[in-house]
């Protein structure tokens, strides 16, 4: 027992040494001091005056973890839904438009818009599910392809009919200020992260302790088995996709009400929230409780790297390379990822 633990620790150490070596070489090439860069990295991921950088990390982590949780629900059910980006955009777009169009008291508008966003996300996921179940377009392909139309539809809507003309940008008008999510007192972190924590708790409990989650996972492990023992496979598929899409939609709504207060073209696509969510899930082999932490890890890497670029004079391309190297070495260290890929293989075969 001790032996395996020791070996595990050893191989982690080796991986970390590798990462350090690669980064050291890259930094030596541009003459940036390694130590400064490292401390800048940590400082910018977690520090700052009144922890302002930590707040930035948390704000980013909320969105990444939210997407990771959304993806996890699908993946655990064997549904290779990589259309999180489209569902996120659908949610963000609908949240902004609903808040602009709905009359009524702010709390009502906020609640209704968030619900509408979740519905939109769920709807977009269900579209991929319906293509998969009823038309025979494999989920993997269908969900990926559906990312593009919604992105351009959103872009068109905020570029033409709903454009904030005064701003000169491709963006919608600001949503009413009364609907903005408040900041935690004394910080610049909005309370959107509470929604994500709630969604994560829901997902953890759902995956580990509910009958529906159990059935969905059986379906994910072996669809043929699930069919044979009489689980409602289609219903499970659609319900799981809807849940997954609804959480993505929620993340979109939080980006709107918490951070940008409007829909800006590209605001949900360019930061690669959905893709980062996918790697966050795969990194920890879909273990539910670890998924939000993995999201936090990636957020820290990204804010840290951005900060390192700002303050240690390490050019941004090094920051990119650094991110890639860390992901490569860490990902290959995590054994759970193997499980993930074999499950995916089974899922992909089922798509045939």
């Amino acid at each position, binding site marked *: 027992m001790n032996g395996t633990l020791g070996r595990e620790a050893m191989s982690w150490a080796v991986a970390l040494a590798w990462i350090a070596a690669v980064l050291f070489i890259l930094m030596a090439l541009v003459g940036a001091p390694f130590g400064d860069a490292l401390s800048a990295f940590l400082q910018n991921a977690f520090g700052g005056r009144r922890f302002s950088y930590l707040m930035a990390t948390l704000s980013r982590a909320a969105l990444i973890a939210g997407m990771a949780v959304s993806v996890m629900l699908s993946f655990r059910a064997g549904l290779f839904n990589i259309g999180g980006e489209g569902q996120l955009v659908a949610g963000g777009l609908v949240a902004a438009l609903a808040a602009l169009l709905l009359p009524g008291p702010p709390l009502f508008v906020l609640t209704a818009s968030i619900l509408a966003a979740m519905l939109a996300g769920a709807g977009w996921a269900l579209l991929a599910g319906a293509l998969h179940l009823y038309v025979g377009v494999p989920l993997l392909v269908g969900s990926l392809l559906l990312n593009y139309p919604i992105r351009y539809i959103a872009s068109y809507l905020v570029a033409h009919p709903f454009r904030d003309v005064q701003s000169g*940008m491709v963006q919608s008008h600001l949503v009413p200020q009364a609907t903005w999510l408040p900041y935690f007192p004394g910080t610049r972190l909005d309370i959107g992260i509470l929604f994500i924590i709630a969604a994560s708790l829901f997902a953890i409990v759902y995956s580990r302790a509910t009958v529906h989650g159990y059935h969905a996972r059986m379906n994910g492990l072996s669809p043929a088995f699930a069919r044979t023992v009489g689980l409602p496979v289609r219903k499970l598929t659609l319900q799981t996709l809807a849940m997954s899409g609804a959480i993505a939609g929620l993340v979109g709504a939080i980006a709107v009400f918490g951070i940008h207060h409007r829909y800006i073209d590209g605001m949900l696509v360019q930061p690669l929230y959905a893709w980062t969510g996918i790697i966050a899930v795969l990194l920890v082999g879909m273990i539910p409780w670890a998924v939000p932490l993995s999201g936090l890890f990636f957020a820290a890497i990204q804010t840290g790297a951005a900060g390192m670029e700002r303050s240690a004079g390490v050019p941004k391309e090094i920051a990119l390379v650094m991110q890639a190297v860390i992901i490569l070495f860490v990902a290959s260290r995590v054994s759970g990822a193997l499980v993930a890929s074999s499950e995916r293989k089974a899922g992909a075969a089922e798509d045939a």
Partner: protein
Amino acid sequence: QEDKLFVYVSPDPIGVNAFLQMGRDGIEAAGEEYGADVRTYESRTAADRLENVNAAVNEGADIVVLLGFEFNDIVREVAPTAPDTEFLIVDQCIEDRPENVHCAVFREYEASYLMGVAAGMLSESGKVGVVGALDIPFLHRYTDGYAQGVKSVAPETTVDVRWVGGENPFSDPVRAKEQAVAMHSAGSDLIFTATSGGDFGVFEAAEERDFLVFSVDINQCPQAPGHVVDVTLKRVDNAMLQAIGAILEGEHAMMSLGLAEGGVSAMALEEDQLADSQCVVAEHPEVVEKMRSVAASIIDGSLTLEDPMFAQ
């Protein structure tokens, strides 16, 4: 160690974007001039921009220079909470500015209008084109300004407006080139390109298929000698230097820079540089003449142009 800190936050990666590069030149010149440390933070996404501005405030910047219209919301949010920091937005302004927010905007459409005038005069096919990176309001300052210029001298000439689009609109020379080729095939003999990283592709198309182009921001005529008629010039560095000076004097600066202020220009208007510019327009004195006279009437106010950015 200097006692002041200026931070320049770009809205996008600087890369080859001449406009953003000039911003960096400007901040460096200002740092030199006024004895300040300067830093440049590049952003990639909407979230990065917010983070970078917060970081600048957090690092105790005295002046934060924001280039581009992408920063309006952010400034509106952050400026009131950071009374010790002055914000300078270049290229855009917000309403009801707080005391610590300053602006410098350009009227690029005036220069683009001049390109249009030249195109209208030089076109033989009766059809000219313009390609922008992405159909966003800001780029209409180029495309619409150009189109208006064309119409002013050749009402019959049609203007083909197209966009690069795709996954990476601001640096996709392959699509930009393809778009230029398509427009040329559809009959346009002069094409104005405002495609950022895609401009190279348009120049290549011009050389291969032998047509004429206009471009933006800095003198790009040497990129494709004999094919670039003229370029619009945008003096971001000057503007920044002036505005920072004004802020340091305690002004609540709001500058609008067009042809009259020397904020924008065209090679044809630069008498001392035109001859060595390698721009095709130098071989057409009558065009240069006309452009200068139109410019003069814009400067003296007898010709007023509307900002196309706010057109629906």
